[in-house]
């Protein structure tokens, strides 16, 4: 697909010929045209095409809206843009009417007609599709007034709703690739590295390594044949995190622009994006974006006439968590098994094919054009002392407003969970928030006022990680969560280091035993003794941080562990072997709703009389619990 402005149709160039834009002046001219055609369309309907909304059926909504637009003969005056993720996935599918920015949520195809005719054309605000504040029930028409968005600072993510990710001209119209021009034509490579250093940007892939420092080491490293690589880590293995995919799906050129700037600064000759196989939509968007970047002259030979040549290829991951680790990732790119290697020789010196290689995360790359365009001082003014800028989190689990949020570093967990997230689902009690994925830990209520920053999260035994924030309530069992991560890590350990392979497995077996009610009090001490051995005896971050989930769980929720061991009880009602289902005769209204779904037919009773559950035949499948509207099914 090519742009909509008619640039290609002009016949000046074709996709296979010379690039469309060959100098900074070309770009500025093109930008004017693209902006004019972008702005000529004041009134349009934006439909969120992110993965969350797709799961909710947004493609059918977009189709229905397009159908009505066509039937009404409005194709020329009322475009429909399918954009990247708006972030508020919980409320999807999301539709926004421009220029008033009326925000409609949970839209269905049957709403298409009134959205087009009454809202977009006649200017009416459709009350029933607006977001309603949970407390006051007040309807909120504009995105920026919704509490979910109010505390956010959407620098990296901000343009997602405004551009069509499949159309490079939208990105250019809104200032895209101007940072690249600045870097190529008015900055020396070392100045760029210095700027990134001064900005304080730290890697968003988990470790938080200072990006500028990594770039400087890569710059210095010699290559025997001159080949040097930059790689974008889009493996996103942290279960519960999806910001990298949404960035690529919503604004791929910001990542590409960052990579070209980095490549120029570090003298790289080729770039790769290592992308997770579970992300077909991201792969498609990225493929299109790279093709357009090539057609328009931002990739390839002599970029914009600067003399710098560079291109980016795609490498699909094979589906292994450990391949997100730098050396394993590069091994897998060389066609080998994705096993990490010791890092006494750094990948910036000998990485892919033993050549100097700089690996950065998707979000890290996407921050680069912002820093170059607006300056290190501006960037360093956001955030805390040692964590600068913003961070995108996936706020998920038992929180009311799930979705993707971008917040300034230093915001507190309480603000994130209770103001942006709107508190816990169904008014239940907050118990913990998990950050850092399988390398991180659980953080209890007493630490809710902790500012979110790399070092503070590490201090409490967790870590920033790539940005998953999984909220847990009193129905989440912390022993089960620890068991879950140990299971995950056992499956994902590559098996090279014995302490990681065998040690994590042993801890998992112990925790499984505890979940079955066969634990001993000495088990907790044993786990705490094994943890440092596993961490110290492992080559890569997977093993080194593997004990974090279980150790933080024991540290902050010891009572719950003791309940499992000493009392053989699971207070949260999760561990199957420690719970029984029963029906509370006082709360049960006798509605019969639970009788039919029971696969064991072990619930009996008459209408309007309390039902009885025969626990001897119960398989604890949860069906009755799910359907009961009166909280009468007990899981204890």
């Amino acid at each position: 697909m090519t742009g909509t402005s008619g640039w290609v149709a002009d016949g000046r160039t074709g996709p296979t010929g010379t690039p469309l834009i060959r100098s900074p002046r070309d770009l500025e001219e093109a930008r004017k045209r693209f902006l004019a055609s972008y702005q000529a369309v004041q009134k349009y309907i934006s439909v969120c095409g992110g993965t969350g909304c797709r799961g909710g059926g947004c493609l059918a909504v977009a189709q229905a809206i397009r159908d009505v637009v066509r039937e009404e003969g409005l194709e020329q005056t009322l475009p429909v843009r399918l954009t990247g993720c708006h972030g508020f996935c919980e409320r999807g599918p999301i539709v926004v009417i421009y220029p008033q920015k009326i925000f409609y949520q949970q839209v269905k195809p049957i709403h298409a007609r009134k959205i087009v005719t009454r809202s977009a054309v006649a200017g009416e605000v459709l009350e029933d599709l607006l977001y309603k504040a949970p407390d006051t029930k007040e309807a909120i028409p504009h995105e920026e007034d919704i509490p979910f968005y109010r505390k956010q600072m959407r620098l990296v993510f901000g343009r997602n709703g405004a551009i069509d990710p499949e159309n490079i001209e939208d990105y250019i119209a809104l200032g895209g690739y101007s940072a690249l021009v600045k870097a190529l034509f008015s900055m020396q490579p070392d100045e760029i590295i210095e700027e990134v250093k001064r900005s304080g940007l730290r890697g968003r892939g988990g470790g938080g390594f200072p990006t500028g420092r990594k770039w400087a080491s890569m710059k210095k490293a010699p290559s025997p044949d001159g080949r040097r690589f930059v790689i974008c880590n889009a493996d996103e293995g942290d279960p519960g995190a999806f910001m990298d995919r949404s960035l690529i799906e919503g604004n791929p050129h910001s990542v590409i622009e960052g990579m070209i700037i980095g490549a120029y600064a570090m003298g790289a000759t080729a770039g790769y994006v290592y992308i997770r196989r579970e992300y077909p939509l991201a792969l498609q968007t990225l493929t299109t974006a790279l093709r357009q970047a090539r057609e328009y002259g931002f990739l390839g030979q002599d970029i914009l006439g600067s003399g710098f040549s560079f291109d980016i290829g795609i490498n699909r991951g094979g589906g292994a968590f450990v391949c997100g680790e730098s050396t394993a990732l590069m091994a897998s790119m060389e066609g080998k098994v994705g096993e990490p290697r010791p890092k006494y020789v750094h990948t910036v010196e000998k990485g892919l094919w033993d050549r100097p290689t700089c690996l950065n995360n998707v979000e890290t790359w996407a921050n680069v054009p912002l820093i170059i365009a607006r300056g290190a001082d501006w960037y360093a003014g956001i955030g805390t002392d040692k964590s600068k800028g913003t961070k995108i989190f996936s706020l998920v689990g038992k929180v009311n407003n799930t979705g993707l949020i971008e917040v300034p570093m230093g915001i507190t967990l309480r603000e994130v969970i209770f103001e942006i997230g709107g508190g816990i689902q169904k008014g239940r009690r907050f118990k913990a928030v998990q950050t850092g994925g399988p390398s991180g830990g659980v953080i209890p209520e007493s630490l809710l006022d902790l500012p979110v920053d790399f070092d503070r999260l590490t201090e409490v035994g967790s870590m920033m990680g790539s940005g998953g924030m999984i909220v847990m309530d009193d129905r989440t069992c912390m022993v089960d969560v620890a068991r879950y991560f140990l299971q995950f890590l056992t499956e994902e350990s590559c098996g090279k280091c014995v302490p990681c392979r065998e040690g994590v497995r042993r801890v998992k077996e112990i925790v499984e035993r505890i979940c079955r009610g066969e634990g001993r009090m000495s088990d907790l001490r044993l786990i705490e003794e094994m943890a440092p051995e596993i961490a110290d005896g492992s080559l890569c971050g997977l093993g080194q941080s593997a004990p974090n989930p279980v150790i933080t769980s024991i540290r902050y929720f010891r009572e719950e562990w003791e309940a499992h061991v000493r009392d053989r009880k699971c207070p949260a009602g999760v561990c199957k072997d420690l719970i029984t289902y029963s029906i509370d005769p006082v709360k049960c209204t006798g509605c019969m709703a639970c009788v039919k779904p029971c696969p064991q037919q072990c619930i009996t009773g008459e209408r309007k009389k309390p039902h009885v559950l025969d626990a001897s035949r119960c398989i604890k499948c949860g069906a009755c619990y799910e359907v009961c509207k009166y909280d009468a099914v007990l899981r204890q």
Partner: protein
Amino acid sequence: MEAMNPTTPSGCLCEDVDPILDRYGRDQGLLVSILQDIQEKYRYLPKEALERVSAALDVPMAQVYAVATFFKAFSLKPRGRHVVQVCMGTACHVRGAPLIRDKLERDLGVKNGETAADLSVTLESVNCVGACALGPVVVLDDEVQGHVTLTKVDALVKKVRS
């Protein structure tokens, strides 16, 4: 998604495999990508295809096998006409994914990670499909189903059976 013919292919499969090898310039370094394309074609990696890859790239069968078994993307056994994936990521886990998986196992009559004997369906778990806000998530033939409940599983199973 196009339903695959479940009959097991035979022969050296050169006709299918060679164009894939050529697409990647028979480059050893692109072994993972080559296997991915073969997997896409057959929805698993037939032994004959692996042997062909090994011979054509001059990579020992042991290495091809090591790569084919290391990565989750690959299956050495034929997969079903329908593929049901239950997300077992953290966000889905805390929202009840294990109960969803158990019910799918019971109702589909296949264990997690296995394929029905008649090749009608494969049930497998995945660690996060990136739709975490919609948890629990089930992916039925590449289509993401969000906010899955035990009640909704009945409808999914019906779809698979139809």
